């Protein structure tokens, strides 16, 4: 999907439009007519709201009991408040990290898991030694379609410190009762808990990586073998470059997803930030500002900070892509 973004495009100039033949004009009119639902939707539900939230962020705008307050321009006040907001940067009284650092800290655990687990599963599914791989790939994908709230409840039960199967299994393996993790209620275990809950969503990435693996021409492996490459070398020099576009695709989507992560802490720890403020993710804070406290203007300022951050990170990732993502047929794109 992202190759499309790397492909160059030319913005039409006025001259192009002026020099169009009647036939071309007709084609343009029809084409625009067919994409008009999206064009209209983009303007009304995307572009205008983006501009509106930028304007909101310079105002004082709240909803109280379903009634919108009279908007009032306050200049940079929301951004000043944001720069001094302990909840974002330092975590304030709770003594834990700020929301932004919580998000990044969680990403340091969840991103590697989100790439390596599906990659390993895909390699397993692609193994000639696996019998019934069609069945297995469906079965590993299946939890992906389970409603998110239900999945969180299932894992919440599995990871219940007293009655959950995970701690029962740990105790059966000889871990003393006092040593078993308190999972979602323990500051040190709550991120691993969320990561475990997230593993159920790997099915999508696994299938994409598997399709990438199946697209690697066997002749390349044969050539590597003739050159005397061992298994690791052939993975490093054949498999990895050939599937780097799908890894890149999953990495970018995971990062964009990470920056918007808040539904799991919202459901598992009721959006309270418990234990000890460790789960007050940036988007959870944003959600509470916007939805619970209905502060549209400060929420918009928070959303714009997020927007700029995601933009920087995405542009950075696409910038590094030229060094490690290999698009066959286009040289290094």
């Amino acid at each position: 999907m992202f190759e499309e973004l790397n492909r160059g495009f030319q913005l039409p100039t006025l001259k192009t439009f002026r020099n169009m033949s009647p036939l071309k004009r007709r084609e343009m009119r029809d084409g625009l007519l067919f994409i008009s639902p999206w064009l209209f939707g983009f303007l009304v539900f995307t572009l205008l709201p983006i501009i509106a939230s930028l304007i909101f962020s310079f105002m004082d705008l709240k909803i109280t009991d379903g009634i919108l307050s009279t908007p009032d321009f306050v200049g940079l006040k929301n951004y000043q408040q944001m720069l001094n907001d302990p909840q974002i940067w330092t975590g304030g009284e709770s003594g834990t990290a700020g929301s932004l650092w919580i998000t990044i800290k969680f990403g340091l655990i969840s991103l590697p898991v989100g790439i390596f687990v599906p990659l390993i599963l895909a390699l397993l599914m692609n193994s000639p030694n696996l019998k019934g791989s069609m069945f297995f790939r469906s079965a590993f994908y299946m939890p992906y379609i389970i409603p998110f709230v239900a999945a969180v409840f299932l894992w919440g039960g599995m990871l219940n410190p007293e009655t959950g199967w995970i701690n029962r299994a740990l105790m059966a393996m000889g871990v003393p009762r006092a040593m078993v993790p308190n999972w979602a209620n323990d500051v040190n275990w709550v991120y691993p808990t969320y990561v475990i809950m997230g593993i159920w969503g790997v099915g999508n990435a696994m299938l994409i990586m598997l399709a990438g693996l199946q697209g690697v021409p066997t002749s390349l492996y044969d050539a590597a073998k003739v050159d005397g490459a061992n298994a690791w070398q052939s993975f490093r020099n054949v498999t990895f470059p050939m599937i780097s576009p799908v890894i890149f695709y999953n990495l970018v989507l995971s990062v964009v997803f990470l920056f918007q992560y808040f539904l799991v802490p919202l459901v598992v720890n009721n959006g309270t930030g418990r234990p000890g403020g460790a789960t007050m993710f940036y988007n959870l804070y944003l959600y509470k500002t916007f939805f619970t406290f209905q502060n549209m203007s400060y929420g918009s300022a928070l959303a714009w900070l997020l927007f700029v951050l995601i933009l920087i990170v995405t542009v950075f990732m696409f910038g590094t892509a030229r060094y490690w993502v290999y698009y066959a047929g286009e040289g290094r794109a």
Partner: protein
Amino acid sequence: MNTVKLRTTWAIVTITGLTIILLVMFLSPFAFMVFTSLKTPEQITILGAPIWPAKPATYEYNGKEIEAFTVPMNTCAGSESDTSNKSLILIKKGLKESTFADPSDPDRGEFVCTVAWRSLDRPWQFAPTWANYKEVWNTINYPRLLWNTTFYAIATTIGVLISCTLVAYGFSRFDFPGRDFLFIVLISTIFLPAFVTVIPTYTFFQKIGWVGTWLPLIVPTFFANAFDTFLLRQYFMTIPRDMDEAAMIDGASRFRVLWSVLLPQSYPALLAIVVFHIVYAWNDFFGPLIYLSTNRDAWPISVALQTFNGIYGQKPQLIQAGALMALIAPLILFVLAQRFFVRGIVITGVEK
């Protein structure tokens, strides 16, 4: 030759065995859910109760149901040499010794064993209860939720299907200046954080009185989205243009070409979108949460299920029963339409 064969057999057994173990661990929460949802509240509170739904064993004795205990037989009068444990029913409780009877050997009658009955384990009988499902069904008004969720899924799927087909056709079959730029804009919208657009949109819908109704969730789906448009456009591009052109020479309009030439050939991609979108809408939580939380009657199942955490925090059997009732529909759909899911993912993720 034989050693090679042996080695591959060994590799198959190892890899397949490993995968089975991984899969069992991966899917074990389903077993947890089913088992827990079939347990009685009494079983939940007893420490050391089995993980499968069970109740303490009882036997009928002289017309009464009597509790059973696991007794070491060598403590009992008349069977001192028997080293096994047996399930006996407790007839008369005593501090140091109690009177028991053996349900598998009723002729033996009552006999005394020198054990403190309070320290004995109790045997468990497999005994699933369906009461949890009944309770959840009634508390959350399950038929109502099913209807709400189905309605939401169908309405939005129709919107996505119509709008994405038209837009994908426009992007794949028409050449006009600026098209590639617009397509890049379309794809870039997937990087946009939801809140940047949600806050003003919500404020606007609040102002025109749509908050609390289905409209803010359904109307925008009629204006196409990046993923489904991309999927359909990729599919359209694999269909040769010759047939379009033949149809146009015969006088077919552009819309007629889409309807009679492209769509009949695109049913795998269309079905992929339908199944994806039904599941997406069924599982959608954030949209209904912000737009419908004030209107209980319109809740879809995911929003209703979320409230369980607060109500039934101490009743895992009801939470798990509710979870099963929420996931059963997408699960059935997945089992029936697996291959369309797989194909759709491969098109979006791998193709250019």
